């Protein structure tokens, strides 16, 4: 009799080869120089190089802006989609989420072409537009699912206790949908920091993001420095995820 736990072996192998091993390689490369000797110079180089640091700052800034815009646009959209009074069909939901099915690179290329055609100068504005366009569905969906799953009786109870619709929204709906917003933030903020295609196509590399310099280093065979940058980013992502994990015991709803 084969033990049930044996069934997990193929997945374990897959994880080892395609997730754990590359991560280990990143760490290994990050702490080596070109000749393969152990060194901290890659890491110290990043923190002493003002170009890298400012790119990093710009990336975080763009990521924060993108996330905020996605929340501002995505929350009302999710709320309307989840409200039976305004939306009764699943088709509208799919329409909102459909962009997720199309490769982000293709959408970005198409957006860039559109801007060219319209004669819009590429820059920060077009970059943010492209990012919001790419990441909005990832904000809408987790918020939408939390709102859909939310017990309607909470809102009714609040109304019953004397809360006008607007108060119900602020005191009940928003706080209770925060887990959805949190996973939305996770899905938008992190990928934005590391994205490079969008800035390449939509700003013609005028604005460089953190992802861009990782890509540039790797492309020009500076494997060790590129790995170090990737490692730093992983650490930052790790830290922010920890923060979110501790904020609420469990993150309900959403994609994660």
């Amino acid at each position: 009799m084969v033990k049930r736990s044996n069934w997990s072996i193929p997945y374990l192998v897959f994880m080892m080869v395609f997730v754990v091993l590359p991560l280990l390689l990143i760490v290994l490369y990050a702490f080596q120089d070109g000749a393969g000797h152990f060194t901290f110079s890659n890491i110290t180089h990043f923190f002493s190089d003002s170009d890298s640091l400012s790119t990093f700052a710009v990336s975080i800034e763009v990521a924060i802006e993108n996330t905020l815009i996605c929340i501002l646009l995505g929350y009302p959209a999710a709320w309307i989609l989840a409200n039976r009074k305004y939306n009764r069909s699943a088709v509208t939901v799919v329409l909102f989420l459909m962009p997720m099915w199309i490769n982000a690179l293709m959408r970005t290329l198409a957006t860039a072409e559109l801007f060219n055609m319209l004669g819009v100068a590429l820059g920060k504005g077009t970059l943010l537009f492209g990012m919001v366009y790419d990441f909005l569905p990832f904000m809408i969906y987790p918020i939408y699912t939390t709102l859909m799953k939310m017990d309607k009786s909470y809102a009714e109870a609040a109304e019953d206790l004397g809360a006008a619709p607007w108060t119900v929204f602020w005191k009940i709906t928003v706080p209770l949908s925060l887990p959805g917003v949190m996973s939305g933030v996770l899905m938008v903020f992190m990928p934005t920091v590391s994205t490079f295609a969008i800035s390449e196509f939509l700003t013609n590399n005028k604005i460089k993001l953190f992802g861009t310099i990782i890509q540039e280093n790797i492309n020009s065979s500076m494997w060790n420095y590129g790995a170090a940058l990737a490692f730093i980013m992983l650490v930052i992502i790790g830290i922010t995820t920890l923060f979110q994990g501790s904020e609420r015991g469990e993150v309900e709803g959403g994609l994660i």
Partner: protein
Amino acid sequence: MTKDYIIDIQHLSKSFGGVKVLDDIDFYVRRGEFITLLGPSGCGKTTLLRQIAGFIAPDEGRILLEGKDISGIPPHKRPLNTVFQRYALFPHLDVFDNVAFGLKLHKIPAKEIEMRVQKMLKMVSMTDYEDRSVDSLSGGQQQRVAIARALVNYPKVLLLDEPLAALDLKMRKDMQLELKEIHRKMGITFIYVTHDQEEALTLSDTIVVMNEGRIQQIGTPTDIYNEPVNSFVADFIGESTILNGTMICDRKVEFMGHEFECVDEGFGEGVPVDVVVRPEDVCISSSLEGAQFSGVVESCIFKGVHYEMFVDTDKGYELMVQDYDSFEPGSRVGLSIKPDDIQVMRKERTCNTLEATVEDRDHISMLGCSWECTVPEEFKQGDEVLAEVAFDKVDLLDNQEDGKLGGEVHFLLYKGDHYHLTILTDEGDHLWVDTDDIWDKGDLVGIDILPSDIKIKRKNG
């Protein structure tokens, strides 16, 4: 004098998708009263409560609160509060903030909020729980917080939607007593919704029995229990045996093949009636002397306080009897029923009366299809007539396809020697059927009627 009524509900009706959920509901609630809306699930009681709370707007009719029509006022402006079935405590707030929620909205000074919340938590025995998160509370504790959260606002009326349904039996009994005590202390009017007849009998000053969107009976628990107005109420409240009978004359009724003295008058002579006998009202003894009729004990089950027995009577009826003494199955017993323990009810109908249209000499159309029968000479094609079919002349078949039309067993009543079924046809009509066969609620059946069993009558007026 409408002024004594805190709530006056006038001719309220509501349909959802063409189905009438509430049909001409009309009753009033006295100030300070504990009134219970009682009925099986789907009878419309919760819809009615939600209309009073303001979550559903009525199609027709009005709801008056202290004489003023509140039909158009949104829930947050109604001075009523609800205890929800699943409590609906806000999971992101602690116990104190949950209870204080309504008070904070009404801009009441912090000191007074503190005082009122503490007082209310004390009333529901939840002092020292202020800082607890509501997720960490047991079902019973959550229920107490939900009651405190509603009552702290001193509503004019407290609405309770099956508040104890999620608790286990022992806790439910304790909470019933506490609710009654809270009602007495606060003096606030309670409107309580439940499907549990025992709960309703324990708690209420007045019970409103509902079924299929209509009020069946309004009365005190004793009235409803002792004098049910129809077979639905008799069957729903407590244990009972409902039997077909005939009123011979005033104070004399025949059922189970025997004549009995009773206290009912004014039914007329030779009129078919329903007779309700409560199992605890049947006197059972091992001696046949002085007994009104006899029977053989069929089964005997110990129920804690009493024994529950089924007795086959001398004329072939089955009667439920409860007594403190047990009688061996197979033993012969004498039975009698006191005159004032016999409850006589007018029959709602004595046969199926259906609207029909004459198609030709030997066909009529009714219940959405065509039926063969003999149409008397006096009627011609296209005439609107009434078709009468006796209860026991409707045939029920196992397979829906085998019948002329399909239907579903909607309600069933054991009448001592046969079952009286209410069938809901696929077209949405009701048919009443007497049968010896055993069916369950929800069974799908085929319906057929022999041509000779359809009697055509002229439509009055």
